[in-house]
């Protein structure tokens, strides 16, 4: 008799086999929209009747032969990997790829892919931009509101279908429900002792990026029903910060050293579910509020917001220390780091930073040694 998979195993499967749901959706005649990063309002894509999935990199695929021949490797290596996969045709099944006005690397990648498609004639999916800005001032909020409306109109034109208010409301509710359930997952990580490891959490949260929200919600509900049975996790409580994490390499390495990552301020972790869309507001205003006004993207200014957000997360999770991980050429989070570190020091919270990291984890032995030393230092401090 075939063993029935658990809800966690199901979520893990969707996290690992990232095109699984998209393939099923396409087989059923659906439209799949790829999003580069998590700043794009997926609610509108769902309301348009499409399946949004994240366009991520793959550290196991080298960029040397194809991607690096067209785009210099001196940008964020995760974005280099996305670019490489696009050129390799790994995302050919997508009906559309949307790039947000994110950091320099994402913006550069868009212009490269656009040029490779239009000037070099490479067979790449249709491309679009969701424009945002870098500040939260009044004029910026107005602009993002305009672009939100334009994005809705664009999706209507793209699908040939009007997006009704009811469809937006339903999509917002599905995504909010997803966030509420993931907040429960986050709460289990914050328990003492934690009931879910960081590596597991990345996969539970990450499954949401590659499958329909309703299906993910169903799995989450079943998973949470048996939360009491989840085992206690032993180890020093750590908080992760820095560059996007779209795979489990780093978390696995850290958690194999007598530590548990209990939360993070990374977009692919707990930050994904930190803020719900306010359903009391006009839907597009509410999306602007969620994706712009209340967003905590490291690329934005003022830096003080990223400092406050980190401290709030660390305190809420009861973390004993913070691990900063910066991929090569991360020009956003690294500029926030010295002030974040200083604020942690003032709060008596130790931190460690891994800078200029490769996308495919390199120098693992050295990292393990540094994590060991960091954990020992925290434990020694606790016992003083």
């Amino acid at each position: 008799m075939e063993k029935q998979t658990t809800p966690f195993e199901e979520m893990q499967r969707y996290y690992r086999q990232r095109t699984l749901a998209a393939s099923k959706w396409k087989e059923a005649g659906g439209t799949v929209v790829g999003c580069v990063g998590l700043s794009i309002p997926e609610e509108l894509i769902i309301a348009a009747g499409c399946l949004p999935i994240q366009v991520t990199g793959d550290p196991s695929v080298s960029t040397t032969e194809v991607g690096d021949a067209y785009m210099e490797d001196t940008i964020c290596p995760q974005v280099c990997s996305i670019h490489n996969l696009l050129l390799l045709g790994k995302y050919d099944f997508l009906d559309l790829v949307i790039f947000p006005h994110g950091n320099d690397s994402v913006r550069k990648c868009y212009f490269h892919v656009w040029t490779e498609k239009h000037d070099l004639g490479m067979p790449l999916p249709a491309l679009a931009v969701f424009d945002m800005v870098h500040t939260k001032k009044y004029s910026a909020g107005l602009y993002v509101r305009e672009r939100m409306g334009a994005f809705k109109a664009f999706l209507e034109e793209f699908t040939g279908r009007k997006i009704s208010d009811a469809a937006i409301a339903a999509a917002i509710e599905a995504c909010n429900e997803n966030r509420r359930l993931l907040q429960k997952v986050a709460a289990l990580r914050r328990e003492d002792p934690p009931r879910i490891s960081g590596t597991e959490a990345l996969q539970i949260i990450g499954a949401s990026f590659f499958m329909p929200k309703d299906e993910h919600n169903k799995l989450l509900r079943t998973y949470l029903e048996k939360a009491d049975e989840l085992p206690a996790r032993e180890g020093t409580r750590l908080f992760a910060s820095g560059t996007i994490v779209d795979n489990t390499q780093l978390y696995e390495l850290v958690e194999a050293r007598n530590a548990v990552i209990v939360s993070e301020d990374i977009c692919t972790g707990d930050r994904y579910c930190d803020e719900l869309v306010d359903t009391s507001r006009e839907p597009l205003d509410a999306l602007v509020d969620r994706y712009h006004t209340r967003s905590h993207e490291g690329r934005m200014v003022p830096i003080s917001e990223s400092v406050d957000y980190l401290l709030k997360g660390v305190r809420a999770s009861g973390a004993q220390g913070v691990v900063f991980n910066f991929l090569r050429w991360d020009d956003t989070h690294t500029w926030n780091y010295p002030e974040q570190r200083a604020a942690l020091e003032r709060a008596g919270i130790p931190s460690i930073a891994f800078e200029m990291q490769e996308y495919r984890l390199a120098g693992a032995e050295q990292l393990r040694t540094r994590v060991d030393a960091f954990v020992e230092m925290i434990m020694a401090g606790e016992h003083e």
Partner: protein
Amino acid sequence: MSPMAEETAFKGERSKKALNASIEATKFHKNYYEEAKQRAARGEAVILANVGIPMEILHAMDIPVIFNPHWSAVCAAKQVSERYLTALNRRGYFRDLGRYCSLPLGYFFDDRPEDAPWGGLPRPTAVVMDPMCDPLIKIGDIMSREVNIPYYVWDRGMIAQPPRKNIWESVDDIEAYSYEEPWRIDFAVRETEGLIAFAEAVSGKSLQKDKLREAMDRSTEQFEYIEKTMDLAATVPTPMRMGDHMANLISTQFYRGHKFGLAQAKRLYEEVKERVEQGVSAYENERIRLMYSGVPNWFSPGFYDSFEEKYGAVFAWMGYLTLVPKSLMRKDASDPVRAAAARYVHYGTELQPPWFPRILVHEAKKFRIDGVVYSKVESCRYLSGSLRLAVRALERSGIPTFEHDADMVDSRDWDDTRVKGKLASFIETLAERRR
């Protein structure tokens, strides 16, 4: 040991200049700083800014402006970049972060203006940055808190549809394209109005529309002179040296719409025109024509003169005088705020594809270039441009390329002999090719 003696042992080489206009430009700029200090001492506002903001507004308001990259270049030329970059690193900023635009932040961290180049900067009244690249807006944020002064980000949106055709062929096409995607221009207008209000608040001055229109017209005329100069500069043999390009980019980068900017552009044009008419070349023995793509080396500008004597290799093209004025030309200033918005909403975009590869091929052909030396600066990815696509396009056009891997202001990793040796090998292959 005095603080100045702590600096790097390497002392850069000065560049040679062929033009009197270049000497004028250098002199003016030093005096401008001195005057800015005197005005600041009298209580006048001085703004520290990046070059991607509508600077015509500040010039029209007669507010002295210190430009972040220029101060970086001055510090590098005076061999103190190590001191300021080290000050940054001591504050916890990683060594691999962008150095060109952060070096002035290191100057403020160092806080020893008495022995800084040119006697240090006047204390700025405010900071204005644009999000041309990620580090800039962060640097402005940190700077404003370090100096305790207000900060304005001239924010802007992102291009959704680059031009399908090569608009670099025509200034009119560039201008027409700049008004596409009007939502971005509308936002840039609001941001520009915000900048005017900010500048008025921090300076106590007010801006008149006519003054702004005059400044916009002035910069357009300035750009037209530079464009005509660059047509002349394509002459073989070249009438301008690399040192002349470097000295004169000051006027197009920092004095757009300023009376000096126009006067300098005219002076440059007239001198180059005269030289071309009289058949006067900048180098005595020009045999190989090189193009330099990227920000030049400010700590050893004489580097570019090192290949003339032995190989007859000259740098006939450098990007600033060509790329910036041509891409910023907005002839219709009837609505000066909208024209300024449309001018700056694309600032720096020409470094991205599809623009960059198209432009380099066009310019290399126009200047009859034998080989392209492109600067790959790991700490400043944005200003390095879209190199791989550009190299592919150039090589498809039969133009050899060479990767020059060095920072524009940080001399800490510079190995003069090694760098010159590598470039000399490339030049030898070009010489062989010509034979």
